[in-house]
């Protein structure tokens, strides 16, 4: 478990990181918390010739209220997210999701920007980011642009990031009143990544009926996947146990299922439904206050 030789480039600014990325192209990888990249390098599954360390760039770790948005810097660690009062107030799903990632050591190093850029299908954070319909701010050689979370995840370890681009910020729009969110997962007992997980955000009308639902499945499929059929089945309904269970039973629809020694496709599909039911019920309870 010794990585192949690489050249280490500490970047002191985003511009410098982007310049280095452009210079080394496919031979380069960005290093943030390193808790996904370093293990794959030690197993020589990844052998980047150049490692650009963005972990020392100042000013990329923050959680800020900016009008109708809460902006989270790309280098904000899971531990910071887990403890954030602001996030807990508006987006319970984020600290809840952060709290079940790895162990304290991982949470102290791992970053939200690193997680979504790596786009591991079994990772937790991409599900929460997508369920909250965040906007992802990226910068590259051609300047800055914003990508909707729904357009960001393209497949297993694949995102909409263009060569030379890096994530700088994740922007979460403030939710309407009577909105609740939650994350549940069935953890792989070895890695504690998700065999199946669900991030759910629901908004209830004054009468308690569901006016908006956003449900994303992690772990079961090849990428964090929006469960549109579940969302549709929730809309306009009172979110009682039976309704939610029926809606959640559609959780695996549209998933390209994965399979390994920790769960067959059939099991993952069923667990996606179980996790969806639990997350939605919890989110609805939080929405009711």
């Amino acid at each position, binding site marked *: 478990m010794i990585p192949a030789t690489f050249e280490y480039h500490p970047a002191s600014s985003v511009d410098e990181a982007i310049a280095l990325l452009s210079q080394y192209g496919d031979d380069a990888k960005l290093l943030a918390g390193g808790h996904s990249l370093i293990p794959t390098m030690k197993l020589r599954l990844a052998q980047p010739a150049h490692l650009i360390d963005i972990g020392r760039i100042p000013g990329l770790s923050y959680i800020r209220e900016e009008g109708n948005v809460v902006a989270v810097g790309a280098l904000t660690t899971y531990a910071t997210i887990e403890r954030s009062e602001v996030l807990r107030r508006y987006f319970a799903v984020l600290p809840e999701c952060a709290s079940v990632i790895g162990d304290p050591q991982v949470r102290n190093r791992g970053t939200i920007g690193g997680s979504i850029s790596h786009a591991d299908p079994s990772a937790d954070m991409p599900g929460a980011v997508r369920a909250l319909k965040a906007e992802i701010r990226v910068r590259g050689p051609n300047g800055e642009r914003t990508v909707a979370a729904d357009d960001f995840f393209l497949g297993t370890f694949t995102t909409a990031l263009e060569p030379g681009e890096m994530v700088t910020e994740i922007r979460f729009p403030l939710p309407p009143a009577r909105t609740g969110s939650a994350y549940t997962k069935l953890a792989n*007992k*070895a890695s504690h990544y998700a065999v199946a997980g669900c991030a759910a955000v629901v908004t209830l009308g004054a009468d308690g009926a569901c006016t908006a639902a956003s449900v994303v499945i992690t772990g079961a499929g090849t990428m964090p996947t929006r469960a549109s059929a579940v969302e549709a089945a929730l809309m306009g309904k009172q979110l009682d146990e039976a309704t939610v269970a029926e809606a959640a039973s559609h959780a695996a629809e549209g998933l390209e299922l994965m399979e390994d020694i920790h769960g067959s496709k059939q099991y993952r599909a069923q667990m996606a439904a179980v996790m969806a039911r639990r997350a939605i019920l919890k989110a609805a309870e939080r929405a009711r206050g």
Partner: protein
Amino acid sequence: MGIAALVGTPIKRREDPRLITGQATYVDDLKLPGMLYMAVLRSPYGHARIRSINTEAAKQAPGVVAVYTAQDLKGVVGNIPVAAPLPPHITNGMGRRGPLAEGKVRFYGDPVAVVIAESRYGARDALDLIEVDYEPLPAVVDPEKAAQPDAPLLYEEFGTNVAASVRPPTDEIDRVFAETQANGGIVVRQRMVNQRLAPSPMETRGVVAEFRKADRTLTIWSSSQIPHLLRNYLAEQLGLPQHQVRVIVPEVGGGFGCKLNIYPEEALAAFAAMKTGHPVKWIEDRSENLAVTIHGRDQINYVEVAATRDGKITGLKVHVVSDLGAYLQFFTDVIAIAFTLPMICGCYDIPVAYGSCDIVFTNKAPTDAYRGAGRPEAAYIAERAVDLVAHALGKDPAEVRMINFVKPEQFPHKMATGTVYDSGNYQLALEKAMQLIGYQQLRAEQAQKRAQGKLMGIGISSYVEICGIGPKGLTPFGLYESARVRVDQSGDVLIYTGASPHGQGEETTFAQIAADEFGIPIERVLVLHGDTDSTPEGRGTYGSRTTAVGGTAVYNAVQKLKEKMKQIAAHMLEASPADVTLEDGKFSVAGAPQKAVTFAEVAAAANFSNTLPPGIEPGLETTVFFEPEACTFPFGTHICVVEIDKDTGEVHLRRYVAVDDCGRQLNPLLVAGQIHGGIVQGVGQALFEGVVYDENGQLLTSTFMDYAMPLASELPPFELDHTVTPTPYNPLGVKGVGEAGTIAATPAVAGAVADALGLPHVDIPFTPERIWRIIQQQQAQPQA
């Protein structure tokens, strides 16, 4: 015996300050001048023929000093040592190997070549430059398939993969089964899989070898449980006299049996050091550890148990298929035969027991002793068998245990297997555990939960195991232990033990024994171990033997020195030795307590030698070897409660009670520590762990991303209690406790899960999907 000031008290471990402040030295902490680093090229195939190996490019790589293959070792380095080769095939060489694969690779990770380089990175990089031309062969990973006549053969010349079979005649057990059934009794049959586990110590293996050419002395630092055995066998492998080999075992970060072995890397590092003239270091990485360090368990057990309608077991028939893996390590071939079969009756007075066994080679890593070594499998068989009877008869499993226990007045008791148990009170431990957990209330709660459709289960494990090995005859070498005890002129006591404690805490317990016996503070006692140049010949630490065997050697050595000190004190006091007593560190004359000399004064007299009585040698030092006349048999009852999440199949361990009897407890804190760690590993087997290969022999659990270790967050607090039934076979009355928790825990959890599901048996490990599938099946056929 002196006043029991320390023995029996829960004092903290004296070794811990250096361990928990990072000041201890492990193999990887060693840096010697001019040291080179070794990396091992390993087979990516489960089974393949090696057509050719080209090492030229690797040899040219920067910093590479040498590359070796099996060709370089031919006639120079002998085979990997095996303690007790069994007939008919192993004695003829089946399963034996040199340190590097020759002609064929037989498991994923089989070592093929080594690179010696100036840096660890350079050595690793050069591995990628070695070209091996493999011809992949069909692999066999299932031991039952491997035993079939048409299976791919690991050792073609033997015409079979079955290394040995033990098949006694079945007439008697057949008669018992027939009679039991004729009398209205039952015979229950169950196949059980005891899955393969990776011992996974926190510190992986490591070795540093240094060879001084001037006098041809080899020093080996190894993360090992057996310094002397390693020294002796390695000397033989390398053709060196034993006195030219020194083994030093620095701090060891866990062994659990996997370091009770002599592996290829020790001889390889030594060979490289001898060839290059430089010290050579090799540190195993975690993926190597999971792939090539021995695995444990991996048995398939066919269990048949006969009982009367009242629940009295009349006969037990067990067939064991033991998966050896691809090669033999130290005890690979004898685990099932020497440690499982003799213990299949567990705590139960079963009139007739029958055990048979096939030991089979497969294209997997070698199996060997892992915490419990064959006894966890036996306890699992016995406990599951009793539960099978209870389930079939609709009886409470506690009741069936009570009916069948060997009674306290029957000890020493010869079991139907021929094994003789020393002492025990199985009823008491079970009663105590039931009381502690509130057994009857739990059964009431379970009935309520069942009515609500919830899955809750209670599991009992009344285990017994073998410790304190051992008497002659178990292996070709005696399993004694040694102690050299020296009292220096300042009155400090130095204990050199031939055992090799590596986390068990004998630096504390051995000091407790000596301090109490001499009546001096523990601060004046130092326990030293792990260097073959300074410690007397020993057998090492494993099999929960160190306190019972090594501790007794210490105790006996101390008694000898006490006698000598009494003679010296008598001379100083002008009294008869028979009238002198030692108490609280003072030698005094009976009836005249004011006439006294201190322990330190006598020590000084002995070492300065100017006031010694005639005929008494100067100095205070003795070496004692202790070989027990028989093994000890610790026992106890563990009870646990599980709840199962019906939606996901996840098993939650809710409560865990352990009542253990390891004889006299020298230090209850250390006993509790052993029980805690043991339970975690036993629960690990039941709920989480399992080495998985695919059908081609590819290892699918090569990192901790896939091999599931138990975590503290998944376990309840353990509720511990004990009973004390001393063994008559050593003066301390101690039995051993290192493996008890592991042996007890797996069947306790297995019983609880089967109980929750209302089934006679479910195979471990209880992974969520496995349990979920069973629940799905039950919901589809409610009557099943």
